[in-house]
């Protein structure tokens, strides 16, 4: 990038000033001191990177005084790059308008383009970078003068990096910050302080961790205590056992004494329980037999009135078939009678007139026939009313009798009554009838006599003589009479049968000792009763006989038993069973005592020996017991003590288990550690940033240094007028003097150090020329342009100019002459060609 023109509109003391830079390599600005050379340098730098109107410090050369009341300030620069493109950079600032950096307009070949089109070509470096690397003037000298020797060396080292001065400052700030936080040997710095606190806290944590050891110790103690306690308890248990057994013995003493007492009571008793049992049994048997005997006797008493067999009864009974036969005949008579009566009734029903004459005798009938023949057919009949009444009685009697008979089978009392009443009525009827017949005969005769007339006939015979077929009636009467005769015969037979029955009934009644009516059913029933009676009597007789037999047997048995019992009693040498019982009671008592003894013995069995000993000396035994009790209580005390100790340990352990002390101390430590971590991060970030910058500078320098050295060597030789002709870089930078002596940088004079610094700076610019190629601005205050060195300087400038355009600002005419260039001069208002 070559500067070919610069136009100042208003800047510093300049107004409307134009320079055309005709030489692409070296241009010389010639002017006396204060002519404005520095202002041009500032102009170039500020048009490129912005005006410097801020209140902060700026390098000397930029401290120009702007013209008052001129506006706008600024101007433009015209560059041409390798490709022949022309860039016009115009920067203007009007008071109070826009940025104080001024307003930049970039044109490429007269076309307005964005700024970065230009700045990209110089890798977007900033003003510092440009001033630091491309401007060699009085300011730089002053700055270098202010750098300490040691720092100068470092700056020499880092010349390989861009902006290294600024970075070194930044780095130093970080290093300082780091140092303010921590130093290896520091004590009061924050990180050091924290480290100390952590140390303290750690010891606190260890202290608190004693809890763990204490807990362990306690748990061991606890185990020991428990063992101890266990042992003690075992011993106590042993004693307790002894005590218990002795105590038991003591308690058993009364039992033992009782045993002895009982043993003294033992006597020998002869007693055969089997025999006794037999006696008992026999006595019981005898008793039973006696009771049985009594019972049988009582029963026999019941049978004492049993009669002997009665022959008359048997005879009576033998007549039963005969009676039965009579009964059958009697029944058939009754039936026959009924039949005849029916036939008579039928005849009467067929001819009612017959009824009126039925009872007439043969003579009466003949008389009737005569009367009828005498009579006109009308006559009176005998009042039948009177004759029916006795018949009714007779009928009623018969009926009741029959009813009575029937009832006799159903209800004996009613039957007997009815039969009686029936018979009475029949007898009464019969009597009445006979009476009636007599009176009828009297009356009929009276009637026949009184009324011979027809009316009398009718009145006499009750038959209306008119319409009367007398022959027929007579015939019927004859039939009726036959029947009546049959009836009479039948009744006769009945009577015979009845008469046969009556004495039998009387006999039977006597035998049975009860009233028996003379009718067949009663008699037969009585006969059945008789049969029963005979049967019962026989059975009673049989029973009586058997009881008597039993009684005899029993008696014999009783005798036998009594004999046996007596024998046993005699053998047992007792008089009676009661005595024997007394012996048995004593025996039982003895047995009981023996049982008690054996029970006591078996319960005391294991302790008998001890008991014997104990009883021999009761007092010492009791004392032994008391001693044991004392011992046990001592053990108890001890165990209680151990228990309370164990409990104490347990409480301590529990407290430890619940304690948060360890955690709290650890947490405090952790908190401190966090603090340390954070502060350390801060410290390390500062430390590492410093290191980082150093390392980056190193890297940049290391890479560029070897290449820079080739040109730097030449620059140094020219700058030192051949006194130093070589620079080598190994671990350290060494410089070779004209006499071949190699000197480490730290042994160079201040002046030579500065020259080495400038040589390297120029070499750096040369080194980056491919990336950033801008004009180098050199002030004659920077180089010693004395006559002696003028040739060398010219050579130097020529060499530099091969890579970058060089703008020289000088007040020395000789230099201008030597360079054989048309200088650009500073005159107000003039335009330079």
């Amino acid at each position, binding site marked *: 990038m070559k500067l070919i023109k610069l136009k100042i509109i208003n800047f510093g003391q300049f107004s409307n000033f134009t320079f055309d830079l005709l030489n692409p390599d070296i241009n010389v600005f010639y002017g006396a001191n204060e002519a404005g050379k520095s202002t041009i340098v500032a102009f170039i730098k500020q048009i490129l990177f912005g005006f410097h109107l801020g209140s902060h410090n700026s390098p000397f050369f930029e401290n120009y005084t702007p013209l008052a009341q001129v506006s706008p300030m600024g101007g433009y620069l015209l560059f041409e790059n390798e490709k022949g493109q022309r860039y016009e950079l115009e920067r203007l600032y009007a008071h109070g308008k826009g940025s104080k950096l001024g307003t930049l307009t970039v044109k490429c070949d007269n076309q307005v383009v964005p700024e970065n089109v230009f700045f990209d070509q110089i890798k977007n*470096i900033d003003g510092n970078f440009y001033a630091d690397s491309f401007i060699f003037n009085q300011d730089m000298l002053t700055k270098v003068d202010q750098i300490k020797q040691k720092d100068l060396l470092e700056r020499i080292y880092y010349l390989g990096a*861009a902006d290294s001065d600024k970075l070194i400052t930044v780095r130093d700030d970080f290093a300082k910050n780091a140092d303010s936080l921590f130093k290896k040997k520091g004590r009061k710095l924050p990180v050091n302080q924290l480290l100390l606190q952590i140390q303290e806290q750690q010891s606190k944590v260890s202290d608190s961790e004693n809890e*763990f050891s204490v807990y362990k110790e306690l748990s061991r103690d606890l185990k020991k205590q428990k063992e101890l306690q266990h042992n003690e308890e075992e011993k106590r248990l042993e004693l307790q056992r002894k005590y218990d057994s002795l105590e038991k013995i003591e308690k058993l003493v009364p039992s033992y004494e009782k045993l002895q007492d009982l043993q003294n009571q033992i006597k020998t008793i002869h007693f055969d329980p089997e025999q006794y049992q037999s006696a008992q049994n026999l006595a019981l048997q005898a008793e039973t037999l006696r009771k049985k005997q009594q019972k049988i006797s009582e029963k026999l008493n019941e049978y004492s009135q049993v009669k002997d067999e009665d022959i008359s009864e048997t005879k009576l009974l033998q007549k039963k078939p005969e009676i039965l036969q009579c009964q059958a005949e009697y029944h058939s008579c009754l039936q026959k009678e009924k039949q005849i009566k029916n036939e008579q009734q039928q005849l009467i029903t067929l001819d009612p007139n017959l009824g009126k004459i039925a009872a007439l005798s043969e003579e009466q009938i003949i008389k009737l026939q005569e009367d009828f023949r005498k009579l006109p057919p009308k006559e009176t009949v005998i009042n039948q009313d009177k004759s029916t009444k006795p018949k009714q009685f007779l009928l009623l009697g018969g009926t009741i009798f029959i009813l009575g008979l029937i009832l006799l089978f159903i209800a004996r009392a009613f039957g007997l009554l009815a039969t009686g009443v029936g018979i009475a009525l029949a007898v009464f009827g019969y009597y009445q009838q006979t009476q009636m017949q007599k009176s009828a005969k009297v009356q009929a005769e009276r009637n026949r006599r009184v009324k011979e007339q027809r009316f009398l006939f009718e009145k006499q015979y009750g038959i209306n003589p008119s319409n009367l077929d007398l022959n027929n009636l007579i015939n019927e009467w004859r039939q009726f009479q036959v029947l009546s005769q049959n009836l009479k015969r039948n009744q006769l037979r009945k009577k015979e049968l009845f008469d046969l029955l009556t004495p039998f009934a009387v006999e039977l009644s006597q035998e049975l000792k009860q009233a028996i009516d003379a009718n067949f059913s009663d008699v037969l029933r009585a006969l059945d009763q008789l049969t029963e009676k005979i049967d019962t009597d026989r059975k009673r007789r049989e029973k009586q006989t058997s009881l008597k037999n039993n009684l005899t047997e029993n008696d014999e048995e009783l005798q036998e038993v009594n004999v046996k019992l007596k024998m046993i009693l005699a053998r047992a040498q007792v008089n009676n069973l009661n005595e024997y019982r007394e012996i048995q009671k004593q025996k039982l008592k003895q047995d009981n005592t023996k049982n008690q003894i054996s029970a006591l013995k078996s319960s005391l069995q294991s302790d008998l020996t001890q008991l014997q000993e104990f009883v021999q000396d009761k007092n010492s035994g009791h004392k032994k017991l008391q001693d044991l009790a004392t011992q046990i209580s001592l053990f108890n005390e001890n165990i209680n003590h151990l228990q309370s100790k164990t409990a104490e340990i347990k409480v301590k352990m529990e407290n430890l288990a619940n304690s948060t002390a360890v955690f709290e101390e*650890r947490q405090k430590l952790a908190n401190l550690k966090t603090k340390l971590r954070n502060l*350390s991060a801060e*410290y390390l970030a500062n430390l590492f*940033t410093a290191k980082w910058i150093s390392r980056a500078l190193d*890297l940049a320098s290391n890479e560029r240094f070897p290449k820079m050295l080739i040109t730097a060597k030449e620059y140094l030789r020219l700058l030192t007028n051949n006194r130093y002709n070589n620079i080598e870089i190994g671990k350290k930078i060494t410089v070779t003097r004209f006499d071949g002596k190699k000197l480490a940088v730290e042994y160079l004079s201040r002046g030579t150090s500065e020259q080495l610094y400038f040589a390297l700076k120029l070499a750096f610019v040369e080194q980056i020329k491919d990336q950033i190629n801008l004009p180098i601005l050199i002030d004659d205050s920077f180089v010693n342009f004395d006559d002696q060195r003028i040739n060398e300087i010219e050579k130097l400038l020529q060499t530099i100019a091969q890579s970058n355009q060089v703008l020289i600002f000088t007040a020395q005419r000789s230099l201008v002459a030597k360079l054989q260039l048309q200088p650009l001069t500073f005159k107000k208002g003039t335009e330079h060609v």
Partner: protein
Amino acid sequence: MKFIHFSDAHLDSPFLGLSFLPSKSFNQIQKAPMQSLTNIVDLAIKENVDLVLIAGDTFDSFKPNPSAQIFFAREIERLITAKIQVVMILGNHDHMAKEDLLVPENPYFKLLGEGEKVETASYTTKSGFEYDVTGFSYLANHITDDLAAQFPPKSKHYTFGIMHAQERAGLSSQNVYAPFSLSELQNLNYDYFALGHIHLRQVLSETPLIVYPGNIQGRHINETGPKGCYLGTIDEQTKQTKIHFVQTNLISWNKRQLELTKPIAKTELEKMIINCLKAAATTYFCLQIKGANFLHEKEAELIQDSDFWQMISEKLAHGSQLVDVRFINGSKLAVAVNDQKYFKQAEEEIFTTDQFAQISKDWSLKTEFTNNLVQDPDFIQEVKQLAEVKLNSKLKGVNDEIN
């Protein structure tokens, strides 16, 4: 056969960076490891497993708080009562004597490989399946020997290896946790290798299975995600093993990132943060703010204050908490383009583990804690991010000043 494998319970462990929490939340997180262990025991009983493998660091210290021990003993007794075989080893944190454990003698509880001796125990499940468990316990906090080399060849039974150890890597001085190489374990060809020590859950090898179950409860922001145990099922015929992870933790840790692309009002920022910190369960968050350069210095200061975190936490569901805010540099370093690569290279160089240790040794060698920090990649990363933020804001500040 079923088994559970867990490790690094770190019961009674303190919690880093939570001292500002209200005591209720703090108590909750303090009890969280115990709760997680209880959940694992519940799971073992519910699933009726045959074996529980405990691969070390059950306690945070070899002198643990008695209450933690009593708690642990009670949980183990629950397993014993359920007739579940427990095989436990001790790790670098809990290297104590067997008699210091409060677990009573019982055939169902086995402390394997006392005195750093590789030991094999043989068992038979209720169903008659025979298996061996081989492993060792720590005697002190470091083991530099390769104890994996002392493991016997696999027996004819199903064989478990159990080891509290770390894969060999880096400087020999760092290989102090029974260093092993993966190929070495693979060559042993045990059916299942139960590891402990690394808190990040990972399956180092599928065939044979070599597994870190991770710890059972995250304790700080670098132990993120679900934590718990592995539940394994063995096909007794084929001896094929299937494992699946079961989450048992109470509180999860999570990192969330929020990117700023322009300056933002404070209330808007709060909203964004609360929105960013949504979770379905109790979660402790670390919030990383990318593009923190858009925050004013005062805002940045406020956001990094724990009072601000508490204010945010009160607005989160499930008792979740914001417990950390970190800034991440969002833009390129403000250095010359030509030198970007050198800065990048320099950053890579100095933040390697070795260089980091070297540069910070004055500080790191002061204590074991700082020495552990210096080896912690997360810490290195944190310092690196902080350095980036610092450098860039400084460079920007310088430039802003000039411009």
